[in-house]
Structures are given as C-alpha cells and as structure tokens.
C-alpha cells in the first residue's frame, strides 16, 4: 500500500512533466498502470473541457450563421460545418499538424501592459495548442449543426409572443430564442460532449507527438500493452476511467438540463434521455 502511495507521488502528475522522469520498464505493477493511466486522463480532460467551452460559443455563432438569410453569412458557415463533419477527425489532425509544421517560425510579441508574451507559431505544432485548435473547430461544427437543428425547431408561437411583447434584436435572442434552442438541443449536445471526450484519445496517435512521453491515458495504456505484452490489464483500466468520466458528464449535463427545463410545468419537463437512434455524432 505504501509503495502504491510512493508510485502515486512519482507518477501522479507524470503526464504534465512532474515527478519521476523514466517510465516504469520492468516488473510493472497494477498500481503503476492505474496511476500513470489516470495521470494521462489529465490531458483528455484538458482537451475536452477547453474545446467544449470555446466550441459552445463558436457553435452558437455557426448555427445563427447557417440559419441566416444572408448568403454572405450562410455560405461560409455551411461550408465550415460540412468540411468538419464530413471528414474524419483522424485526417483533420494529420492535415492540421502538417500545415502547422509548414508555417514559418515566427514570434509575435503581445504586450499585456504588465508582461510581454511572445506568441510563437512553433506552439501550433505542440499538442496542447495545435490539437486543441483542431478539437475546438471539430466540436464547433458538430455542435453548430445540433444548435442549428434546435434553432429551426423553436416554436413559432414563442417568437410571436416575443414580438407581441416588443422584444427585438439581441434581447429577443438572449431571452427567448437562445434558452429554447439550448433546451431543445441539450440531449444531443450531451451526447456530443461525451463523444468529444472520447475523441481526445486520438490526439497522440495522430501527427502530434507526445513530447518527453507526456501523453494521454491511451498513450500510456498502449505503452503498457507493448511493454507487458498483456492488453487485458491496461485497456480495461482506460475503459474504467472513461466510464467514470461519462457518468460524471451525464450527471453534470443532467443538472443543467434540469435548470433549462425549470420553467416548464412538471409533466412537460423532459428528463435527459439520450436518443437511441441518433446517439452517435
């Protein structure tokens, strides 16, 4: 037990560069596998949370753009959604990485007043930024399509009452359209969030290299499977972590769903139930 605590302090933050430098090579224990794979989950959570957070807002913009009557707004949004939903994320990673590598190495100084930050294009070839951008664009496209569908399904009576009450422009959108759109889209969006977490496992298997063996959960799992030649331990551990994570997401999104449905009469409130036909992105 105490040796497992030692392992935890050695490898608990290994995926972000703290603790023991060398990965375990021989006599790999179950504890080491659990700790190191768990440490890798930090990356999966980092990628998914940031991509979903930024993607949420961009997706709203895309949905509004796709719904717009102006072809100047409509066409680029449609094209964006089509390109990112129509091609495999796996290829998007490779394509983006190879594009980023071709970029000239530039550094731009950004003066924040109290501190000067040098933004380098080199960062784009690192997973923490490059892969995050790809994931962000990808989830924006999928969520944009979901929000667009929900936007089209907002009841016309709601809009008429908004007009009757004199709501216009931003206020009409923020108070009437947006909450209803979110409420309608929420079950599908929950599903998208779950699959975004799953998609983060692709990062270190595509162009983006794991620098100094700092990788995500599945990177370490495949490392262990290679070293021990026994896939029956590390992969179920990854599975365990992800099932746990999925349950947490469903719980959190269920709470938000309750908030979104709060104003409805009890018998009309919808429980967060993931549709079986369209459960996949």
């Amino acid at each position: 037990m105490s040796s497992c605590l030692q392992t935890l302090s050695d490898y608990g933050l290994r995926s972000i560069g703290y603790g023991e430098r060398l990965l375990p090579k021989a006599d790999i224990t179950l504890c080491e596998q659990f700790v190191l794979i768990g440490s890798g989950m930090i990356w999966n959570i980092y990628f998914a949370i940031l991509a979903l957070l930024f993607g949420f807002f961009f997706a709203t913009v895309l949905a509004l753009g796709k719904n717009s009557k102006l072809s100047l707004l409509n066409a680029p949004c449609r094209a964006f959604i089509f390109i990112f939903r129509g091609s495999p994320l796996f290829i998007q990673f490779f394509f983006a990485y190879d594009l980023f590598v071709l970029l000239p190495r530039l550094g731009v100084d950004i003066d924040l007043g109290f501190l000067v930050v040098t933004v380098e294009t080199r960062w784009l070839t690192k997973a923490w930024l490059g892969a995050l951008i790809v994931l962000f664009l990808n989830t924006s496209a999928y969520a944009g399509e979901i929000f667009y569908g929900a936007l089209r399904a907002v009841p016309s009576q709601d809009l008429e009452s908004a007009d009757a009450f004199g709501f216009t422009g931003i206020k009409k959108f923020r108070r009437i359209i947006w909450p209803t759109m979110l409420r309608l889209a929420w079950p599908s969006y929950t599903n998208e969030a779950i699959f975004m977490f799953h998609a983060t496992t692709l990062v270190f298997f595509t162009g983006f290299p794991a620098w100094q063996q700092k990788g995500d959960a599945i990177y370490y799992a495949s490392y262990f499977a290679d070293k021990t030649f026994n896939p029956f331990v590390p992969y179920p551990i990854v599975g365990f972590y992800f099932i746990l994570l999925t349950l947490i997401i469903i719980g959190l999104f269920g709470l938000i769903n309750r908030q979104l449905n709060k104003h409805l009469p009890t018998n009309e409130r919808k429980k967060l139930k993931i549709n079986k036909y369209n459960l996949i992105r």
Partner: protein
Amino acid sequence: MFSYCVDPKTLEGLMWLSCYITTAKHMSFYYSFFVVMGLLSLAAPLAMAFGFAGATAARSSLKIVRAFGKGYLAMIRGIPDIVFFLFIPIALDQAFEYLRHKVLCSDVTEAVRQGNDFVVCAAAKLPLNTANEWVHDIYGFSLALLAFGFVFGAFAGNVLSGAMAAVPKAQIETGEAYGFSSSQIFRRILIPQMWIYALPGLSNLWMILIKATPLLFLLGIEDIVYWAKELGGIKTGVYEYPHPDWRAWYFGVLMIFYLSLTYLSQSVLDKLSTRLSKGQATMAGKAV
C-alpha cells in the same frame, strides 16, 4: 510507367509529375483506397450481424442473455472506440494462439505468460512463421475487420434496439390476439416494421463508419494514411523524385476523398429515406 520516365532527374513540369504520380509506390497508394472500400463493404454487414445479435439478446427473456446483450450495447457509450480498436486485435490474436497452443502443443508444460512475455510453441503461431506475406496481410486485415464489426455492431445494436422499441405496441398486441407465437411476432411483425425507424440511425452509422476507416492505420495496416505519410515525407536527393515535405498536400487529398464519399453517401441516403417514407403514417410520409 511511361517510356520517358527512365531518368526522372532530367524531366520537368507536367512530364515529371506524370512520372511521379505513377511510381510503384503511388500505385500501392491508389490500391490502398480499394482496401478502404473493401473494409467498408465487409464491415457494414458484419456490424449489422453483430448489432442484430446484440439487440435481439438485449430483448431476450433469459436474464443472463439479456444482461450480456445490454452490457454489450451500453459499453460503447462509455468507452472510446479507439480503446477497442487497440485492444481487440491483440486480444483476439493472443486468444487464438493460446487455444492453438493448448491443442497443438499439449506436451509443452511451461506457462504461456512468462513475466512480460507471451510464449506459444512455433506450431501455434498465427500465421505460421513460414507463411507467405499475403497470409500475414490477410490475417491482420481480418483482425481489424473483426474489431470494426464488434465496435460498430454495438452502435448498430443501439440503433436497432431503439427501432424495435419504437414499433407501436398495438401492432405486437394485434399479433398476440391472433395467436402468433413470440418468434412469429418477432419475425413477421417486429422486424419488417422496424426498418423505417432504424433508417436515420443506420444512415448516421454509415457516415461514422466511413469516418472511422483511417483508424486502420493504428492497426498496422498499410492503408491510405500510411501511404500519405510515407509518400509525403521529405525526399532528399538520393531519391529518384526528390521533393520537400508534401504531407499536407497528401492529407489534403485524403480530406477531399472523404468529403466526396460522405457527400455522395448523404445524397443517396436522403433519396432512400424519401422513398422509404412513401405511404408511411409519419410526417415525412404525408409530406411526399
């Protein structure tokens, strides 16, 4: 390929390009597109079979079969598919070799798992060390195919079980009133009526299957991703056709390939959906 390609260093422009894109390696690249199509056409029916079995098991009256079926369908929602793609081929390979070892080399008493090694006797190796290279290729491809069938079977199982649940209860009750046995109801009422409910999910699944095919690369198969990386990398002067890093271009080609494939599929599926909706008592059916 062409007669003027003997000395590529002297060529320029279009002549050079025409020789470049017809080298033997490029031919392997083009051939790998057929591997992808082959995988798609084999994985789709296999996944349907797995999915049908899973969905049927999840409705079984036997508790243990039902638990097994439900577990299979639920698992794919919690665990990323790539875990299965990495796990299933090695696990199956080891399972096959282990079984063959037990049967063919029963006289060997040493344990198969020795520390970090997995040791089976030479006769139990799959494929045999003496086998041709194409046997190795076929074996690797089959393992990958089984992994695809398993993962997409679970997805399809979810869609089919949802569709089975969506068939109106009254239809089933009518069958019971006419004295149909439960297997007759299943075959004559449930199955024929579920397809229209399953179609949206299955079309979605087909698109996902298309987008999952580059994962073949992870399974060590020389697919389009492998060749794009191989051909696109920097080629120095020692090569016949030197060029800088062209990987972005090659992956751009793959993007276009997949975009056209999904676009084409979408338009076919939309047509199919309209046709199948004809005469159905649904909103889409009334609209036609």
